[in-house]
Structures are given as C-alpha cells and as structure tokens.
C-alpha cells in the first residue's frame, strides 16, 4: 500500500535518513576529503590528490593487511554461523532447555572485546589453560604457542571471535526457526522424514532470511575487527595478525603525521566491505526470493 504513496514513504524514511546523513555520512565525507590531503593529525591541510592512495598501492603492509582481513572474515563467518546453527537447532528441539541455555550462550557477547581479549590472552598463554588441557589429555603434540606463532595466531583470534558471537548467531537462527509455520514442520514429521532430510529440504530454505542477516552481520563485523587483535597480539607476531582496521588505527593515532594516509586506507576498507557484503547480500537475497 505504501508503494502508491511515495511522499508518505519519504516521510517514514526521513527521520532516520536525516540523522544518518548528518552524523555518519557527513563525517565520512570529511574523512574522504582528508584522505586527499597531507593532513598530519587530522587538521586542515593541503590537497594532494591521490598521493596517499598511490602510496597505499605500493605499500606491502597494506596488501598484507588486506589478505589477513579477508581470510579472517571468511573463517569467522563460516565457523560462527555453522556453530550458531547447530546450537539453534539443538535449542529449538529442546524448549525446556531454551530459557537457560539461551541466555548462557549469549554471555560471551556481554563481555566487551577488550575484556574477552585479555581473558583469552591468559588462557592461550604457553602455560595457559588450553595447553594444560591438551597436556592433561595426552595431546601434547597438538600444543602450539597459540598467540606467538604466525601459523596459529590469526586463527586463535578468529576462534575467540567465534566464541564471542556464536551465541548471537544462534539467537538469530532461533528467531528464524520460531518464525517457521508449524504446520509445515509437523507435516514433515508425520511423513516420517528423517532429521537430516527435514533439515535440508525444509528448515534450511526457511532459514534463508535469518541466514542473510547472520552472514551479513558477521561479515561486516569481522572485516572491521580491531580490538581483539589489538589486545591479544598487537598485530604480531611479525605483523601476521595486523588487520586493516589495526593498520588504520596505527596511522591515525600513533603519531608520525600519517593521519591522511590512515584516512585513505579507511576509505579502501569501506570499499572492500561494501563490495564483499554487497555481493554476499545480493546473492543471499536472490536466494531468498527464489525460495
């Protein structure tokens, strides 16, 4: 009905849009403008065109950060949603457990990334809980210097990221489950379909909107990830966990007059996220419509 009343539609959108344009888009535009100058600390400075972007193109640290950020995001999105889905289904099938377990799995999300980072840093230390546990189980050969070995550091951080948000993904999937029409689910049970088949042919397609939301949120969040690697490894060892956000942060606030350069990298991050998230969104939306 509202499609026939574009003015009303505009009025509905107006408050949100106004606030957003003023407090997000405008500063963003200023940030873009800064990236085209040689601003040292965020002050007004001289226009230098695309010089910062050229530096960035030739900066190995930038490309390394890009690779790290993308691979990190892929792993986190896949794992977080897989685990979230398993949890959601388990909880959906156990209504009595839902209340308590539902709150419990969301607890990690309550802690800020900074706190979680500190806690996990000590748990993952060479003499920490994880190593002790593996030793106790006789799996000593599997132990590593989790946060000090470039081969495991990034994935350790990814694991903590998943730990923090798997419960949240589960909550969204659960909402998706609750939205499913009971008749369809019950009918499938009557038909005697097995759990796996029910999942594949009925639940999975009906979860499409929840999946879209989850994947998009997880993707954007993990592409922007920053406080977790900052607290856990400070971008180390040897730069193997320096994500794009960390690189930007360093340029903007650690002095040396690289503010404008940081702004340029931030613009690139924006482009990367928009491209990735946009594509994924498009694919998932099309799928939603098909189903």
């Amino acid at each position, binding site marked *: *009905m*509202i*499609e026939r009343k*574009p003015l009303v*539609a505009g009025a*509905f*959108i107006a*408050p*949100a*849009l106004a*606030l*957003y344009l003023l*407090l*997000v*888009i405008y*500063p*963003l535009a200023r*940030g873009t403008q800064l990236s085209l100058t040689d601003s040292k600390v965020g002050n007004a400075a001289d226009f230098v065109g695309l010089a910062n972007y050229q530096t960035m193109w030739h900066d190995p640290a930038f490309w390394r950060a890009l690779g790290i950020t993308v691979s990190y995001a892929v792993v986190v999105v896949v794992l977080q949603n897989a*685990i979230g889905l398993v*949890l959601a289904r388990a909880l*959906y*099938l*156990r209504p009595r457990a*839902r*209340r308590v*377990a539902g*709150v*419990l*799995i*969301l*607890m*990690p999300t*309550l*802690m*800020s*990334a900074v706190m979680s980072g*500190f*806690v*996990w840093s000590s748990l993952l230390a060479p*003499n*920490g*809980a994880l190593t*002790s546990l593996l030793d106790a189980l006789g799996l000593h050969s599997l132990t590593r210097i989790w946060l000090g070995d470039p081969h495991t550091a990034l994935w350790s951080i990814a694991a903590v990221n998943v730990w923090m948000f798997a419960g949240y993904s589960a*909550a969204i999937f659960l*909402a998706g489950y*609750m*939205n*499913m029409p009971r008749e369809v689910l019950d009918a499938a049970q009557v*038909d005697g379909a097995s*759990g796996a088949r029910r999942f594949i042919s009925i639940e999975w397609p009906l979860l499409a*909107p929840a999946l879209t939301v989850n994947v*998009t*949120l997880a993707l954007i969040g993990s592409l*922007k990830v920053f406080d977790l690697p900052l607290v856990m490894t400070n971008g180390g060892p040897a730069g193997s966990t320096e994500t794009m956000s960390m690189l930007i942060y360093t340029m903007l606030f650690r002095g040396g007059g690289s503010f404008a350069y940081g702004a340029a990298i*931030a613009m690139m*991050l*924006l482009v990367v*996220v928009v491209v990735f*998230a*946009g594509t994924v969104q498009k694919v998932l939306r099309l799928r939603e419509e098909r189903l």
Partner: protein
Amino acid sequence: MTNVQSTTAAPRAGVRQRPRRPLPVLIGDAGLTIGVALIVLPLVFTVLTSLRTSADVSDAPLGFPKSFTLDNFRAAYQSIHYGTSVVNSLVVLSLSAVITVIAGALAAYPLARLTRSWAGWVYRLFIAGSTVPVFVLIAPLYLLMRDLGLLDSYLGVVLIYAALNLPVAVFFYTSFFRQIPLELEEAAAIDGAGPLRTFFAILFPLLRPITATLATFLTLSIWNDLIIPLVFIQTAGRRTVMANAYSLVGTYSVDPTVLFPAALLGVAPLLVVFILLQREVVEGLTMGAVKS
C-alpha cells in the same frame, strides 16, 4: 512438547512424551551441554580470578584459588564510581535504543516494500555506512558536535549512537518486514487505516521478537562502547560505566584483579537488561509461532 523422533514415524501429528530419549538425541544433549559449558567456562574463570588476591593470581594465574576476597570488587566499585556511572550508561542506552528502534523501523517499512530504485539506493547507503570503523569518524564528528553545541551532553552521545546503529536497525527490520504478507496491509487499508496507523497498530507489533533481538544487539554495542563516551563526554560525573572501568588499565600494565572485577561490575546491569530482553524475545517468538 517437541521431541525428536528420528526412528520410526509417529502415527499422529503433534508429539507426545517418550519414556526414553533415543540415542541421537542424547548425543545431542551431551553435545549441547559441552558446548554451553565451553562457552561459559572463560567467564567462570573471570569471576574466579576476581575473587582472588593479586598475589595469589600472580603466583598461579590458572591454579586452584588459594584465597577468597571481595576486596577487589569493593575497590572496583569505588574507583569506577559505580552508582552514578551505571545510571549514566542506562540513560544513554535507553534513549539511543528507543530512537534507533523507532526511526529504524519506520524507515525500514518503505524500504522493504518499495521497488523503486531510489529506495534501493537509500538502503545501500545505510549498509555502506555501517562498514566504517567508528574511530575513522571521530575527528570530523567531534568538530560537528562542537559546531552543534552538543559536546559533553547526553543528547549528543545519544544521537551519535542512534546514527551509528541505524544501519543495523534498518537492515534487521527490512529483512524481516519482507516476511510480512501484503494482505495484512491491504486489509488494514480497506478498513480505512492510514499508513501510520497500519504501521503502529499492526506491523510493528508483529516484529516484536526482532525488536527485542535488535534491542539486545544495541544494548551490547552501546553498553560496552568506550570511545564515544570518552571523547564526547568531558564531565567525569556523566561518564558511562565501561569508560570508567577501562581507565583502570594502567599505562603499561594490566592487573587482572583490578580490571576483571570492574568489567564484571560493569557487565552486571547489562545482564539484567539482557535477561529482561530475552524474555521479551522468547515471549514474542512464542506468540508469533502459535498457529492460527
């Protein structure tokens, strides 16, 4: 209630209690319990560490606790000015959440329904903005707030949080709006209801579980946020609880018996808000799932 029967078909629709749960379900139970335990364990660790003395923790960070003290919590309570700052956090949170939810839902309605291209572009604009890490915006935002005279005020911070979280709200709501059938709106139109009434009387209530889930997300992101209150609120008495807690990280050292209790205290009210919201979510979900 629902019991999975994966072996033979149940002769009737609807389910009944079985005297013994089949094996795959038991495995699932075990898995779920282990999963939840793993998730919760690090938090247990945080609580335990907070209850030990500093010397004990330095000596054996993961060892069996040899001490028990509430002093850490007492000290943290004082140094982060708990009472005042919790109230500050709550105020900022509730105002931001209310604005975000209302503005976001209102905007999402046409964005979900309209097929015109400008609607698509507006939607994309919202998503694009959510991709930038907030610290990129801090400097220009500060200048803007100064010019608007909103520095060191709750209103300024609330508006910033609302603006920053609108993309998520819009995103959430458009995704789930699309699931509401058009017939509902048409029925309302026939009844003579205008778009605003249709929205508030019929559509918005249907989104209750989504609103509650979104509110949960907003609570988490706003409550724990550090940088916005730190930069935009100058008066110490107006600071939020987490901003105060974080100030306990020394220039060059982190004492877990100082930081963890503060963090836990900071998170405690969140837990309460959280449990209330979860009840909303569950209630809303159960309402929505019941058959006609």
